[in-house]
């Protein structure tokens, strides 16, 4: 299994409360950056409420900021957030599925730049993000869907882990697991 390099999360607006709960489960010493796209309006202040229970800082990055381990990068309003290897790349491409930031955009860029070293978590409830998660899956990334997915109809969905708010903590812990033999003294 490839070592993890990036965790991407995408969520529709209706799952904002679930996102807050899942951010609270992130271990404080997570060895990878977390990048989060959440559907939002132009005036929503999201970083402070999402960061309230999260052990990691939640920031809205500027274009071409570096992605550092142990921080949550939240897509700013009005921009797609793309991952360019270790860097943030913001984009003003047109909205997709009526949304900017979009979830497919983030997942697609993570699939391109990290491939099997990425992990993707989609909160169900919107058509946006399904195609991007499948792209991540096809490139060998570890992916999972939180909540019941009524919008996706593709057969490939079955291969992806379906999680609940109760089981997502275990999934995250397994992602961050590093075999003991690899830990340097």
């Amino acid at each position, binding site marked *: *299994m490839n070592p993890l390099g990036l965790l991407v999360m995408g969520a529709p607006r209706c799952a904002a409360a679930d996102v807050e709960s899942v951010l609270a489960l992130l271990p404080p010493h997570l060895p990878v950056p977390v990048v989060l796209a959440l559907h939002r309006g132009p005036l929503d202040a999201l970083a402070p409420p999402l960061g309230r229970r999260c052990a990691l800082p939640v920031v809205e990055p500027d*274009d071409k*900021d570096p992605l550092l381990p142990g921080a949550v990068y939240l897509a700013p309003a*009005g921009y797609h957030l793309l991952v360019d290897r270790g860097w943030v790349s*913001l984009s003003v*491409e047109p909205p997709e599925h009526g949304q900017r930031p979009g979830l497919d955009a983030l997942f697609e860029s993570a699939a*391109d730049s990290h491939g099997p070293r990425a992990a993707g978590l989609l909160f169900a409830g919107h058509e946006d993000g399904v195609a991007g998660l499948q792209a991540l899956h096809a490139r*060998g990334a570890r992916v999972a869907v939180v909540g019941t997915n009524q919008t996706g109809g593709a057969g490939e969905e079955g291969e992806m882990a379906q999680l609940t708010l109760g089981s997502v903590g275990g999934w995250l812990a397994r992602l961050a697991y590093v075999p003991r033999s690899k830990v340097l003294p």
Partner: protein
Amino acid sequence: MTGPGARGAELEALEVDLLLEGVARQWGFDLRSRSRPQLLRRLRHHLREERLDSFSALQARVLHDAEALDALLRTLSCTPPALFAEAAFFRDFRTRVVPVLRTWPSVRVWHVGCGTGEDTYALAILLHEEGLWGKCRLYASDASEGLLADARTGVLPLPTQEDAQRYLEAGGKGALSDYYTRDGNWALLQPRLRDGIFFTQHNLATDGSFNEFHVIVCRDTLLTFNRALHDHIHGRLFESLARFGFLCLGRKESLARTPHAGAYEMLEDCGRIFRRVA
């Protein structure tokens, strides 16, 4: 783990590299310094729009047909779709930059990456309302002749109710409809605005500085470039900006880690408007 997805991705990356190499050698447009993730997404989008199966097929078309190249460059450009698309910037510009411009005898403004001209015309309307039009020279540049040709016509999709609302939020002093005449679903901007703007073809990647300016507006244009070209262009912009001139960037663009960051001060309590102080 190498599945079919990974192998397909490797082939796609190869085809994209060949396409970009071909475009650079045939047309002199070097797209290899673009932000890679954004470029890949725009190219895939273009492939779907053109109903082509592969980038090799697109390459065959683009190398032989200048119009196909123009269509590709259009897809790669992301101009804001309406006048005053970001009201907050124009409001800040009005309250923070305009008072300083009033005190100067003449003002040269450069709008970098004007695309189809929506923001350029919004800026022209603002300068006109503030009584600066007479002493301002507004230059607008883009790398794509096709987009510039659109911008020069001064014809835009008819502004909507929301556009008029944003114009007011931006501090508009009249009515947006004062500045255009309607023709069906299109708006013809007033000739006195259109004719006062110098639209010029300028490629940020290859062309040098062409004048000294007091205001440079370059908003969300550099998002499409990779880090190296982004820094290089900031060098050009620095050379083109007079001391105490203003540099206006997009809401989430920063000068951090660019070569001349120390020469600028950011205006407080507004968006990303910087003043060159050294």
